[in-house]
């Protein structure tokens, strides 16, 4: 596949700089034009095949969720259900405490996202703009802390939550997640890229430090705030490991831990694929919505986009 693609790449690049394909065609370089054409078709075909491979699992899951158990098991590949069944979705709301899981996910995600965006930017502002003793030490400790992988923290966090009596509470699920060293880093990078003069003017006019931060700096930092919002939302909505070690009661299950329990077969007999697929689809909708709203921003890969 690779070898067929590259010639197309080349002819596209060459023709683009030298002459447009039409010009080549007109001046009679027939072979170059044909080669260009063939290469184009081949590379599009290949891209379409890849896109199909990447999207097919989601399409199959979506259609599978509208099938009957027997149909989903027998005809997993068929994209149009033989007879449409909404039983999986109905059952998610009757046999499975999905509304409770969704509620928990929403509570945790909202609180974590709002707190994270606020406290991360607050700390980042101090680290990038305010002169105080210990600033350098705090910043380098943050960098060191970022290197600790989340998986390594599972047992340690459980120990501490237990010690503080926060195990199996909303507090224990939320509080450890509301600061993210990575988010502080993103915001700090951004604050350093905006000119300091506006803030100084505000300060000279008598605005306090917090007011300057809240009314002048934060509105200017919107692009970075949006980045942080997307990352925090997606991160806490998809969080799994931390909830596994910070809770045990079914009442605190979120969509991730609840649906994971469905998948590992805690729901009785049969493979019940439509039900599982419907659950997977439903839990994907919020992040998909966020993704499509901010798609342009997420996919903006120019170097400026790195700062947010």
């Amino acid at each position, binding site marked *: 596949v690779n070898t067929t*693609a590259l010639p197309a790449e080349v002819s596209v690049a*060459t023709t683009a700089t030298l002459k447009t394909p039409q010009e080549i065609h007109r001046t009679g370089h027939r072979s170059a034009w044909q080669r260009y054409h063939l290469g184009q078709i081949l590379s599009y075909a290949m*891209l379409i095949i*890849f896109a199909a491979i*990447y999207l097919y699992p989601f399409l*199959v*899951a979506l259609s599978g969720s509208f099938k009957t158990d027997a149909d989903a*098991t027998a005809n*997993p590949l068929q994209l149009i259900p033989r007879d449409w069944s909404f039983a999986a979705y109905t059952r998610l709301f009757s046999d499975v405490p999905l509304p409770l899981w969704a509620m928990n996910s929403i509570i945790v995600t909202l609180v974590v996202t709002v707190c994270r965006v606020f406290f*991360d930017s*607050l*700390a980042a502002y*101090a680290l990038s703009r*305010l*002169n*105080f*003793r210990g600033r350098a030490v*705090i910043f380098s400790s*943050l960098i060191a802390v970022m*290197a*600790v*992988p*989340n*998986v*390594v*923290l*599972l*047992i*340690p966090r*459980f*120990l*501490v939550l*237990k*010690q503080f009596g926060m195990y199996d509470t909303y507090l224990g699920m939320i*509080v450890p997640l509301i600061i993210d*060293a*990575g*988010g502080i*880093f*993103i915001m700090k*990078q951004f604050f350093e890229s905006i000119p300091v003069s506006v803030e*100084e003017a505000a300060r000279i006019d008598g605005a*306090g430090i917090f007011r300057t931060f809240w009314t002048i700096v934060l509105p200017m930092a919107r692009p970075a705030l949006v980045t942080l919002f997307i*990352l925090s939302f997606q991160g806490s909505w*998809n969080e*799994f*490991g931390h909830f*596994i070690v910070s809770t045990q009661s079914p009442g605190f299950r979120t969509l991730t831990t609840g649906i*994971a329990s469905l998948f*590992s077969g805690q729901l009785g007999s049969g493979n019940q694929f439509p039900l599982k*697929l419907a659950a*997977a689809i439903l*839990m*994907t909708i919020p992040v998909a919505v966020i*993704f499509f709203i901010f798609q342009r921003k*997420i*996919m903006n*890969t*120019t170097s400026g986009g*790195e700062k947010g």
Partner: protein
Amino acid sequence: MFTPPGAARRGGTGPHRGNGIRSGEGRYGWLFTAPAIIIIGLFLVLPIFLALWVSVSDWSGLGSPVNSQVGFVGAKNYQSVLTDGGLAEQTFGTSIRNNLWFVVFVVPLQTALALFLAVQVNRRLLRGRGFFRTAFYFPSVTSAVAITGIFLFLFASSGAVNQIIAALGGTGPTWFADSRGVFHIVAGWFGVDNNPRALSGTALLELSWWDWLSGPSVAMCVIIILVVFTTSGTFMLLFLAALQNIGAEIEEAALVDGAGPFRTFFGVTLPMLRPTLFTVLTLGLIGTWQIFDQIYILGGGKPANTTLTPAFLAYQTSFKNLNWGDGAAISFILFAIIVVLTVLQRIILRDRGNKERLDKPMARLLRNENIRSNGGAL
């Protein structure tokens, strides 16, 4: 306009006292960073020290790990996992074996695929560029739980994948129940079966050479495909950003100068991508040792412990077998592995003379924070 530097320090007495605009910054600096310091201190630094203590203690899980009943046992927990020759060591060895093969397959595959996709969607004259980028990136934003659920369906014994294999005239395996290592299967085709004498000696961590050389099990292959599927999009974006920074001009110049397409790619484009390539490889190396969510959902190491990883083993040892000391010890060994790999990568990076500022790879890393939260599958 500015007060002398000392004023900032004295400014702690209140914003109205100093007349410079830098007054009060000391107090506000600490006030603004306090929430971050407290939470990171209580839920990140303190936990690490508490777990370090547990890893050298005989805490049974009852009561607090810091009471007078709990004794110090030195390196005993580490020894039981690393050198005692018992079941704990063998299980740990198996988890390391599994994860090594996982790394060996996932890192090159995800890197190559991400680079390939990035080059493809970077073409200026491509129609539907946005569509293709979205299609390749979308799996990266969905949760590991949802994707794993979908893969359970796709790779079921009569599932979509096996139906495609059947349509092509083959017979698919029972993916999730097949514990045979893929290299063992291949060896079987050449008549080399179960544990040949030359390889039956114990090599390391209570596993024989034959066991170490098994390759990933068929079940692990599904997880490899799953992870490559979800991470390639993220890394594609990293490569895409780098390609756009390079711009098309240099490649075009090389082509005009008569370099062939392969030579242009391998001789011009790829060397310029080297910093990004190193970033992607580092992130891959670190992330592949953190896989947890997928293992948990697929049954915690089934079949026959061939999908067990150290990250999951640490959890299982502590939370299921209630052997907290061993579990904490495994966590720290895993941490050490990741740190060593990162440092090694740094050294190699420095040797190659890529003087990238710390900020840049870091910013990239953060942009892709989601991979870390995505079950550590990255």
